[in-house]
């Protein structure tokens, strides 16, 4: 896998990003249909090569944020700068900029069924490169190599909706990677995946990071948060940024996590008694039996 990846890196690295600051988000606010608030005065920066996780409970605005970063929707208030370009509707209507932007940033959607719209897996992976005006031969090469990377050759002739959850996710990632973006946005990538696929996916993301890609993951799954990121941005249920910092530190701040509904008062059973105490299954896992309440089994 490593050998293939470094080969990939050598061939497709493209121009070094001169700009170190990839995304600069300032006072961003966004509402659906002008009515339903999704983000409130959000500000942060993302630098080249970083691995950032955006944490938040369902409905906190993570998906919207990724859609905004990918230039699919545009905010009513505030601004997003991508490498010193301010993303707005007119800018993305410019064909040259659109081509440039779509080659640099890729988004893996939460719902694979929606993201995979082509008739076969082969067509799906080829869609990106084709529409970014790569030569037919180059397109075929890319599809072949990306499929080898992710083990998808056997699925080439199959319609995407016929695949299992894990396979769909792989195809989605393959089709996003085929354009060789420098920035990869992932929306709840482990949602609905079986444990093995999850592990594969997370490992793959780590490899991508090693070859220099900037990876931004949005998730509420704290189990993978620490592995896929160094830095974390936490959104609360009022659609604002609750906290920012190193992932390790954020994950140990239990009161913060409870406050934003990322963990819960956990009920479990041992020693013949039912216990209830704030609990998350990640990081250090020790059952300290201090400060919990005993509940009599009914």
């Amino acid at each position, binding site marked *: 896998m490593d050998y293939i990846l470094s080969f990939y890196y050598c061939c497709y690295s493209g121009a070094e990003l001169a700009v170190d600051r990839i995304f600069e988000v300032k006072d961003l606010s966004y509402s659906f249909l002008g009515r339903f608030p999704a983000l409130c005065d959000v500000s942060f920066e993302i630098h080249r090569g970083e691995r950032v996780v955006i944490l938040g409970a369902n409905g906190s605005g993570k998906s919207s944020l990724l859609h905004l970063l990918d230039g699919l929707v545009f905010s009513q208030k505030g601004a997003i700068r991508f490498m010193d370009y301010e993303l707005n509707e007119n800018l993305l209507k410019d064909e040259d900029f659109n*081509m440039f932007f779509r080659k640099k940033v890729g988004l893996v959607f939460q*719902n694979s069924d*929606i993201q995979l719209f082509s*008739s076969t897996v082969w067509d799906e992976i080829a*869609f990106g490169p084709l529409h970014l005006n790569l030569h037919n031969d180059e397109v075929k090469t890319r599809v072949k190599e990306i499929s080898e990377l992710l083990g998808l050759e056997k699925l080439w002739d199959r319609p995407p909706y016929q695949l299992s959850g894990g396979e769909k996710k792989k195809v989605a990632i393959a089709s996003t990677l085929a*354009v060789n973006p420098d920035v990869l946005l992932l929306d709840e990538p482990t949602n609905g995946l079986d444990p093995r696929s999850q592990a594969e996916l997370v490992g793959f993301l780590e490899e991508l990071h090693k070859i220099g890609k900037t990876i931004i993951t949005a998730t509420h799954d704290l189990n993978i948060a620490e592995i896929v990121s160094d830095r974390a941005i936490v959104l609360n249920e009022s659609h604002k940024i609750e906290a920012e910092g190193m992932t390790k530190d954020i994950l140990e701040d239990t009161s913060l996590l409870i406050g934003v509904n990322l963990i819960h008062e956990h009920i479990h059973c041992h020693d013949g008694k039912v216990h209830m105490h704030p609990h998350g299954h990640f990081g250090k896992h020790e059952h300290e039996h201090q400060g919990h309440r005993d509940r009599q089994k009914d």
Partner: protein
Amino acid sequence: MKFQWLTTTDSLPPPANLKVTHRKGGYVEKTLKEITSFFLNWLFSEEIISRRGLLQSIDPRVKVLTLGLFIVAVSLYKTIFLLLGVYLFTLFLAYFSRISLRFFLVRVWLFIPLFSGIIAVPAIFNVFVPGEPIVNLFTFKSEVILGPLKIPETISITRQGLLTASLFVMRVATSVSLMVLLTLTTRWCHILKALRVFRVPQFFTFILAMTYRYIHLLMRQIEDIHFARKSRTIGKEKRGSGRKWAVSQIKFVLKSSLNMGEHVYSAMVSRGFTHELKVIENFNLRRIDYAWIIFSVFIIAVTLVLNWL
């Protein structure tokens, strides 16, 4: 006390006499049946496409072209013998494409040819199609006119009637057989791509492909809805509630379709789609394709010559 009903067990005794009555399938059942058969057919096709048979090995464009020509030829035949001949030919093709004949026959005849056969039966009587009588059935006192219908004095089975009914049914059955051969041995996406050869614009074929995909997604949703309905229906329904529900399902499907549309567009834009759709085709012609083209054209030419002699 709150929730009392939840904490007590319902005192319903199990039914005493289990009469096995065939409950007529309601609309939920019927739709579910259609949906299930839809998916089943589709599943079967996937399996057959992957077998190594005659038609599976032929390039999709060639298949669409030649089978299309056959269907056009079938629409031109004037004698029952030519139709029977080509029909038998389709059976041979099915056999050599490793399609079980029983499956093929069921798939073809259910439901269009059978239906056509049924509606063709009255045509053998001279009430509807005039002609030379073969068997005389009833004789009335005189002609009877019922609005636009003229019932003749003698009702009989006519030669023309029998001939037209047979021509009709065989023509329909042969055409359907040819189409079924195409759909069973070719991936739908290839059929659509093959249309490009006929100068169908890309705009069209791309949307056709998307449509096919959406059909599957929608069908799955509707299936879920109907299962949900089925599992919650106890006893008979109030009149009219079924109608309301069916319509509300259509509304729901409509809504989720629109929702899907927005998201799919985003997904396409995210990978570089602006306004023009681009596709690569990977078709190559091989020896078997050429052989098949020559063979089919020969047969079509011979039959048409015989037809017009």
